């Protein structure tokens, strides 16, 4: 409740800042030493909040559906892609983490590349992965692959830490029970890793959203919010508020995913301590 209130308070402050700057700022922005340090405040760059609200209510094109509906549908489409990517990324991350925990040599050999993998710009991967669409998988799934590519990383790293978190005592206890690796994993390592898993999943959720949005743009997949951002931003010249409606949609998507992950966490994390995981 408190959190919700403070987020609302934060939003209100942000809205005030926006309109305040529009009222007080230079429409051409402030240029210092040849660099524009403060943004332009004109209606083209920063439409009034109510203009954006109005745009949401108006139809997309003459006689078309209202923008809010289009944005919402795009969000739902991308949500599906994100969910698939998130799920796939999580599974891959978990399997990798388990393999790295099981075999020291795998950890040594693989972990640097897991870290390195995240420095490959999506822009470069997109054409390669887009090529799989239509043959290996439906083309929307290629976007999920990109989302999974970003999502697996925090899970793999966080989960590895989690799986390694039980004390030597706990591991020896399981050995004294003559429990093998698998049973130790199920009864000890996995439950012990949950406090590490959930923060990692939150990061993975955010990463999956970014992956889905950028992936849609890169692979030219129609129907989602990423594509909508590009389509609407082509119209920024004549209809600047429209881009912002798509941005709001992306924000909504981010919140939806973050909320869903938090919900997942609630029942499992009672009676548990909370840890923070650092990826990388």
């Amino acid at each position, binding site marked *: 409740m408190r959190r919700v209130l*403070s*987020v609302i308070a934060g939003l209100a402050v942000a809205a005030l800042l926006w309109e305040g700057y529009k009222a007080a700022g230079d429409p051409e922005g402030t240029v210092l030493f040849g660099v524009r340090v403060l*943004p332009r405040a004109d209606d083209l760059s920063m439409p009034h909040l109510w203009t954006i609200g109005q745009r949401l209510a108006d139809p997309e094109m003459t006689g078309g559906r209202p923008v809010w509906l289009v944005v919402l549908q795009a969000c739902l489409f991308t949500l599906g892609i994100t969910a698939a990517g998130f799920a796939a990324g999580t599974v891959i991350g978990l399997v990798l983490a388990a393999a790295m925990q099981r075999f020291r040599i795998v950890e*040594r050999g693989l972990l640097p590349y897991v870290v390195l993998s*995240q420095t490959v*710009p999506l822009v470069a991967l997109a054409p390669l992965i887009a090529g799989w669409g239509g043959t290996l998988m439906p083309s929307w799934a290629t976007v999920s692959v990109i989302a999974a590519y970003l999502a697996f990383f925090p899970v793999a790293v966080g989960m590895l830490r989690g799986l390694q978190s039980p004390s030597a005592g706990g591991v020896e206890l399981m050995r004294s029970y003559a429990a093998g690796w698998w049973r130790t994993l199920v009864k000890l390592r996995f439950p012990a890793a949950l406090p590490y898993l959930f923060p990692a999943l939150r990061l993975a959720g955010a990463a999956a959203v970014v992956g889905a949005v950028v992936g849609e743009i890169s692979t030219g997949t129609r129907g989602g919010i990423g594509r909508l951002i590009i389509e609407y931003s082509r119209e920024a010249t004549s209809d600047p508020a429209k*881009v912002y409606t798509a*941005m709001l949609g992306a924000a909504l998507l981010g919140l939806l*995913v973050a909320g869903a992950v938090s919900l997942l966490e609630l029942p499992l994390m009672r009676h548990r301590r909370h840890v923070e995981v*650092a990826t990388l």
Partner: protein
Amino acid sequence: MRRILPPVVVGVLALLLWELFVTLGRVAPFILPAPSAIGAQIVEQRQNIVEAALASGANALAGLIGGTLVAVLAALAASRFLVLGEVSIPFAAVLNALPIIALAPILNNMFESTSSVPRRLVTGIVVFFPVFLNLLRGLREVDPVHQELMRTYAASGWTFARKVRLPGALPHLFTGLRQASSLAVIAAVVAEYFGGLQDGLGARITSAAAFTAYPRAWAFVAGACLLGLTFYLATLLLERLAMPWKRHLIS
């Protein structure tokens, strides 16, 4: 040696398999180029790669430094004024869930697409979150023993902040920076994707890919990986320099 060998073996093996897969499988270069072809392009384009990496690296660095500075100031303020901290953490967490990179086209309009400001801003915002959240946690988590000790020394609030809070939060700051450093490079490269100056790795990659010149595109990708790695390692180095006490730990 034991730490270096396995990744090197894996890397060499993966490259070999890749090369074999491409040559034996007769995979066309416009689908997946062979490592040898990419290597040849890296050599041929080295000048361009270095120049583009410098441009993207400058943006990433500017964003990293700017975002970190703002994050440090914000974390100091939020740890000082409780209300601010209460409000800022969930708010920051919410903002962090948003696909910030998609802000690039809007920032390009608000600022100037002909300057590097918008992409540096995107990078800065992306950097801000991990640094802010980690540092704030560090600043708040003061060992109660230290707190009492400083009180017995009758130390003022400022002395306390300087001698205990800040050094105590240093490990957290670096945890944030480690995450931020490679994020900064990714953000700087991806932001180029939305227009603006065509001097960085992102622009080079997309333009090469548009020509189906995938070996050339991957040569620039390799540059981007190297840049990200450099940033990451530089942060690690800085961390070791800034926290000598962590280096001397015995088990």
